[in-house]
């Protein structure tokens, strides 16, 4: 009788492990921390190698009340949208968030132009309100971010936050801050694997080691470039598992932002009667986007709607069963 060949892949690389948050013992004030990475095989392929750490969901909160969020999001959070600290509390206490992503959208010169000092106060208020670890994200305005994020980094010194995002042509200021204040960093590349690798090299050359960097290869929602996101992530992960240490970094995806930007998630029942109930449509869009990206090896999914968060966490738990 012939024996079938073992078709399992053998991988030589492992994704770096990275911890967000520092407890009192490590010089911070967090009551819990999150560790990601460690995968030594494609996601959930336990027969080929371990995925020791489950992907995590971070709930997105803002420093100002969003004025263009879809109604289901406004309805589910209610008045706390006006207070970042209360919003953070609600995410943790009511929706079980283990990680938060604070977007400093209100610091953008065109959308509030909050000062660096004001932004730092918001960071402090959120850190005080909850014990979970924090991702701090700027306003995607390079010059303003270079003023705001160093102040926020300082305000959160020792808390081992994940701060972003740096780009190929704008990284030195924030890398220096993260080095000084003990944080980890997000490197943004516009769906371009070559630039993703380049940023990792540039940041690590400044002295922030590769195991303190998370890659953000930018995210496309279902119907809006999801396939590109997925294939870029997969290619990077295959290179990493094949031994490319510069690519062996965890990946963060901005799922909520992208899913809730689509017309399918936002259109009212009146505008699109054939698309079904608008209260659930956006949630499904967010879940579908997140679930697909999990398969490409995403390590952090930043999401918005609590029902979508719960559904994706359930999926992760089911996928992690060995």
């Amino acid at each position, binding site marked *: 009788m012939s024996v079938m060949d073992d078709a399992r892949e053998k991988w030589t690389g492992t994704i770096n492990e990275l911890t967000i948050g520092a407890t009192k013992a490590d010089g911070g004030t967090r009551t819990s921390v999150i560790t990601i990475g460690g995968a030594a095989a494609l996601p959930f392929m336990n027969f080929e190698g371990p995925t020791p750490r489950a992907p995590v969901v971070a709930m997105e909160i803002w420093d100002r009340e969003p004025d263009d969020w879809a109604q289901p999001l406004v309805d589910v959070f209610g008045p706390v949208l006006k207070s970042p600290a209360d919003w953070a509390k609600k995410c943790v206490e009511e929706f079980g968030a283990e990680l938060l992503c604070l977007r400093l959208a209100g610091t953008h010169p065109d959308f509030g132009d909050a000062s660096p000092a004001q932004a730092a106060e918001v960071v402090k208020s959120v850190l005080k309100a909850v014990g979970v670890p924090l991702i701090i994200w700027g306003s995607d305005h390079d010059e303003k971010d270079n003023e705001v994020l160093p102040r926020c980094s300082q305000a959160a010194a020792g808390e081992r936050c994940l701060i972003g995002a740096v780009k190929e042509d704008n990284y030195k200021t924030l890398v220096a801050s993260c080095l000084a204040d003990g944080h980890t960093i997000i490197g943004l590349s516009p769906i371009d694997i*070559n630039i993703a690798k380049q940023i990792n*090299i540039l940041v690590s050359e400044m002295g922030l080691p590769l195991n303190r960097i998370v890659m953000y290869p930018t995210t496309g929602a279902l119907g809006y470039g999801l396939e590109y996101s997925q294939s870029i992530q997969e290619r990077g992960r295959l290179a990493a598992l094949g031994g*490319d240490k510069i690519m062996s970094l965890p990946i963060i995806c901005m799922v909520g932002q992208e899913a809730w930007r689509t017309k399918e998630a936002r259109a009212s029942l009146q505008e699109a009667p054939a698309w079904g109930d608008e209260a659930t449509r956006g949630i499904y869009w967010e879940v579908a986007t997140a679930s697909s990206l999990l398969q490409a090896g995403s390590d952090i999914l930043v999401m918005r709607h609590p029902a979508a968060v719960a559904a994706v966490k359930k999926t992760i738990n089911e996928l992690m069963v060995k």
Partner: protein
Amino acid sequence: MFVIGERINGMFTSIGDAILAKDPQPVRAMAEQQIVCGANALDVNVGTRVPKAERPAVMKWLVETTREVTDMCLAIDTPSLDIMRVGLDAACRKGTGMINSTTGHAEKLVAFMNLAKEFNASIIGLAIDENGVASTADAKVEIGMRVLAAAMEVGIATDRVYLDPITLPLNCAQDAPGIMLESIRQFKLLSDPAPHVVIGLSNLSQGATERGLINRAFLVMAVQAGLDASIHDPLDEELMNAMITAEVVLNKMIYSDSYLKAYRQR
């Protein structure tokens, strides 16, 4: 590419002198330099300046001295079974070893394969047998097949076997490089997973002018043909840059603007 640094060799003046003076410093320094420049393994060869009777002891000293600075794979470079054992014994106490090399001579093959098994070492098999250096691709591949069969016989996995088609100097056999490229392609088809293919690159340009250029041009072609290991001088920056670029051009590595630096950061 798996680069086996060739510089810890008694044939080079600095190492030859260090061996005679029992001075560990130049050996350690050469090991460290090669690693910084991108070597994945280090070849260790006692050379010919010490009398034969002393070579086992010199191999032991040379390996142990190298081991003081790295636990990287060490390729013990000798045709002698006795010296090979001494070298592997010293190398495998901390880290892994590689046999450089066995020929396809039936008796030699069995003895060296057993040694590889004993020390859990990788092994290089040269395309040489009772009839001398195989001169055609067919003859090289036939010996390659025998090397693989001998490895399987004692239970050595194919991915620990490195087939070497044997490099002849360009200035005395100008058709040899073409035959080597064809052999590399065919070696890769011998099994699944494929065996590794290695060459001793510097032999190619032995005695020629433009040595560096000849080495660079051929290495790039050989990488395209499927070569995945090479014994050469990692301190030759232009050679290393050409090799890394060949791998990037062939999409074996993800490009980035700093890809040369990225390779060396590994």
